[in-house]
């Protein structure tokens, strides 16, 4: 038992070290896909479950050998198949850990290709990681089931044994983990305190609890050291700068390949129904709030008439949507929509011209016609701010 405890302590210690070195690696360089919080959480869950599996597996094997010894004495058979199952399970654990490595590398590959992503985690990586978690849970369930069977048969044997020869009972693993004393020895632990009938025992602290406490304190020291003494882990602002730099690089790499790299100088008017429908959809979700769904205008100006405050050509409209006119209440939409979406929106706005909606807002700005793009008659602009 002592050995197991020691082992688990070493594992936890190693775990701590490895996480801290991860941070260290994250420091100056842009963080790897491992720094994605979602992947990190999953990885921690996977490692945690793996530890549980290891622990349970050891117990099951111990129990199995114990039973095999007994059955040998009794001349029974059938335990071999159980052992086989256990080994198979343990073997599969190894396979899964390889899966894990594989999924990590897939995640790395996905980063390069930038395939369809779920909050920065590639779909394959996401599903692989989740599969590992699910399989681990299944293994734990299977191991627990086995343990239960062993314990049940053990209990039965114990009961008969107790009747037969009054032998010393074997200690339950749960009792071992918590350093429990048998209940019949409780009298020796009684401290003699009595508060309104409540007595107190002098049991030991559960060892895993105590070592867990130590681990947390060590974690705290390492954490403070990393962030504030060695400064190898990025503080909030550095973390922000790293993430923006990484995102900018990814975006640049993507746009280089992508076909939708339009701006206000290259934008062309869409006339096909597909692009106009896409523009309409976005218009109705966001623009309609100020311009109404028909474009008749409300808080914002009327978009269906011949007058424009900031120019009525496709390039002007694109520019207005992209950068906004902050002082007049038109916000910039370039962080909300991609260039192609902006072009769709601008084209849709242009398509509204002359639709004569009900309850239109009075014209504002300058008369504009696509045929003659030079500005003409100026109308009364007292209404505009």
């Amino acid at each position: 038992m002592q050995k197991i405890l020691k082992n688990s302590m070493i594992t936890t210690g190693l775990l701590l070290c490895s996480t801290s070195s991860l941070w260290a690696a994250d420091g100056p360089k842009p963080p790897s896909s491992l720094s994605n919080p979602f992947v990190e959480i999953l990885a921690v869950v996977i490692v945690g479950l793996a530890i549980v599996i290891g622990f349970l597996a050891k117990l099951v094997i111990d129990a199995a050998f114990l039973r095999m010894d007994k059955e040998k004495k009794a001349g029974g058979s059938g335990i071999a198949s159980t052992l086989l199952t256990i080994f198979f399970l343990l073997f599969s654990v190894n396979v899964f850990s390889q899966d894990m490595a594989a999924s990590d590398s897939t995640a790395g590959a996905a980063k390069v290709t930038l395939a369809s992503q779920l909050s920065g985690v590639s779909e394959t990586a996401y599903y692989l990681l989740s599969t590992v978690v699910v399989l681990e849970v299944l293994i734990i369930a299977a191991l627990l089931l086995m343990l239960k069977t062993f314990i049940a048969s053990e209990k039965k044997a114990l009961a008969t044994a107790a009747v037969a020869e009054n032998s010393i009972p074997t200690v339950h693993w749960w009792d071992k983990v918590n350093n429990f004393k048998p209940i019949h020895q409780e009298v020796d632990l009684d401290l003699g305190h009595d508060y309104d009938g409540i007595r107190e025992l002098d049991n030991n602290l559960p060892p895993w609890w105590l070592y867990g406490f130590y681990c947390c304190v060590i974690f705290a020291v390492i954490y403070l050291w990393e962030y504030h003494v060695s400064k190898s882990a990025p503080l909030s602002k550095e973390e922000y700068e790293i993430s923006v730099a990484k995102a900018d690089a990814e975006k640049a790499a993507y746009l280089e390949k992508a076909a939708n790299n339009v701006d206000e100088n290259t934008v062309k008017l869409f006339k096909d129904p597909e692009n106009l429908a896409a523009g309409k959809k976005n218009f109705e979700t966001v623009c309609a709030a100020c311009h109404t769904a028909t474009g008749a205008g409300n808080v914002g100006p009327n978009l269906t008439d011949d007058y424009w405050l900031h120019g009525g050509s496709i390039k002007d409209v694109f520019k207005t949507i992209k950068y906004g006119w902050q002082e007049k209440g038109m916000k910039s939409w370039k962080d909300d929509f991609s260039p192609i979406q902006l072009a769709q929106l601008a084209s849709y706005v242009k398509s509204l011209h002359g639709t004569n909606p009900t309850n239109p807002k009075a014209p504002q700005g300058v008369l504009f016609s696509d045929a003659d793009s030079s500005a003409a008659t100026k109308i009364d602009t007292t209404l505009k701010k």
Partner: protein
Amino acid sequence: MQVEKFYYDNKTVKWFAYAVLVWGLVGMLVGLWIAVEMYYPPLSMGFAPTTFGRMRPVHTNAVIFAFVGNGIFMGVYYSLQRLCKARMFSDALSKIHFWGWQLIILAAALTLWTGHTTGKEYAELEWPIDIAITLVWVVFGINMFGTIIKRREAHIYVAIWFYIATWVTVAMLHIVNSMELPISFLKSYSMYAGVQDALVQWWYGHNAVAFFLTTPYLGLMYYFLPKAANRPVYSYRLSIIHFWALIFIYIWAGPHHLLYTALPDWAQSLGTVFSIMLIAPSWGGMLNGLFTLRGAWDKVREEPVLKFLVVAVTCYGMATFEGPLLSLKNVNAISHFTDWTIAHVHIGALGWNGFMTFGVLYFLIPKMWNTQLYSKKLAGTHFWLGTIGIVLYAIPLYWAGFTQAMMWKTFTPEGQLKFQFLETVTHILPMYVARSIGGAIYIVGVVIMTYNLIKTIGQGSFVSDEAAEAAPLPKVIVPHSNEHWHRWIERRPMQMLVLSLIAVAIGGAIEMIPTFLVKSNIPTISSVKPYTPLELHGRDIYIREGCYLCHSQMVRPFRDEVARYGEYSKAGEFIYDHPFQWGSKRTGPDLARLGGKYPDSWHYNHMMDPQSMSPGSIMPAYGWLYEDEINAFQTPKMIWAMRKLGVPYPEGYEDKCNKDMQKQATEIAERLKGDKLVVKPEKEIVALIAYLQRLGKDIKAAPKEQITGDAAIPGN
């Protein structure tokens, strides 16, 4: 030795138990109401007191201070007498305590509904009520220590250690956080501003959870669990270690509510590491409770009291494990501002506090009425409804929180935000529906319990004064030769009080003093100017309507937040914010950079009918802002108070402030007129628009190096 006869006072316990039942139901029903408002906004009925912003503080205050508060007093008055083998110190003080507390609750509900709030979460009550709380708390303290001092038991039991720590820490938290400057009978401004106010507030807020919802209930667990199971407490040593570790460490963890905000990084890190170190002390309590049941698990199947206590302790274990995980920065980056936090606190509130209270009620009432519980079967039904209710409440909200955070953070490959804010809200509305069903099931369970207890009371006869006898305490207590060293302090309640105070004072002091005194913690930005009188009025309206309960004013340094809202928030921006308004939940978008984003007319229409400007929005309408007028009479007093608190308004500005206010209001009214919206400049909506248009404007005028240069300051 001569045995003394005396009587336990059950009457006060009875009154507190009744109060628990009444306020519990009220608080939970208000909670259900606002849970439905989340997906059905018309439920706010266009009536100010029933909008989410005003109902939410009513819900939290009712559940924390009325339901759990009365639960604490019920349990303490019952157990303390029996653990000290003495009647409560003074029946008169017991009476003052009970009625004083109920009056405070009533005053709290009325003032919160009518919009009188300090704008600090869980400390919303205005200054006269704060003073009343202090007085009643002192009454409780005298009554408690009086009882402890005249006890007939040589040593004080672990439950009482927790009661003592609770009393002294809550007193400290309440007084420090409630420092405010009154300007009228029900209006005051926090003495602290911005970052400092945030630090004090969350030091308070986190430790209200620790020392109002946790330590007193651990005390109750240490009495009622061994009593109900009739088993000895598992480990005396564990009690000692986890008690001292818990109260010492807990107090440091407050800054984990402010991760990635403008709070200095060193304070954030302290919040994180102390939260992680808190796992073991918290679990010490859970283990000592669960292991006490060793050899009594067969009773748990039979006895409703134990069923409730076991689930309560288990929920405590889950919540205190999850809490530290949420304090890790990478997890907090996802969970904060989402419904994840709401799910987390309800595991604690519904599971730990709720179930513990129910267990204690099922224990006490048959005992005090000298009878058996009316129906164990109904108690079993309550147990299952409650458990299912908690699960159905929490899981959808965990889901909603995680989903929404992921949607906020998702970019398209072209580098644009993939989802509009509103899309992320409408996406999770089904989860809100499921959550309200879970909550409703939980409440049905509470109604069944109330029925069961009324029936129990009906069949028993109340023992008002319960006879008991014990030998008096000898003048000199001779210590046992080989006793544990901790027994020394268990004979000395006053030293216990002082040591507890020292243990809980250290953490707060180390975090607060440098934040207040070291200048580099809050670098100044020269373009940040005080609010104009009109904006100040608008800010008061913002606080009155509880806008901060759904909208944050804190852009964290994340790529998605900067893209969505603008430049991330800096400590220097908030130096004139009495109180700070960073918020803790984003049901609506962040407003820190709202100024200038939309025209005045947008705000005008939006406050009148939010769905007209943002289709699908779940924000309630604020019709009364268009009828009520700004209280210009108060402006000079507001200016005076702000100057007192350090906002640099020139001397004598009180005489000119209303003129300035009128000028600015007329300008806004003129602009609205330009958009065919006619409004008198005196109306409240004009002030609110002025405030909203000011948000985040100052920093745009700041010199570049002042905004970015603060990272270079050493020790920051």
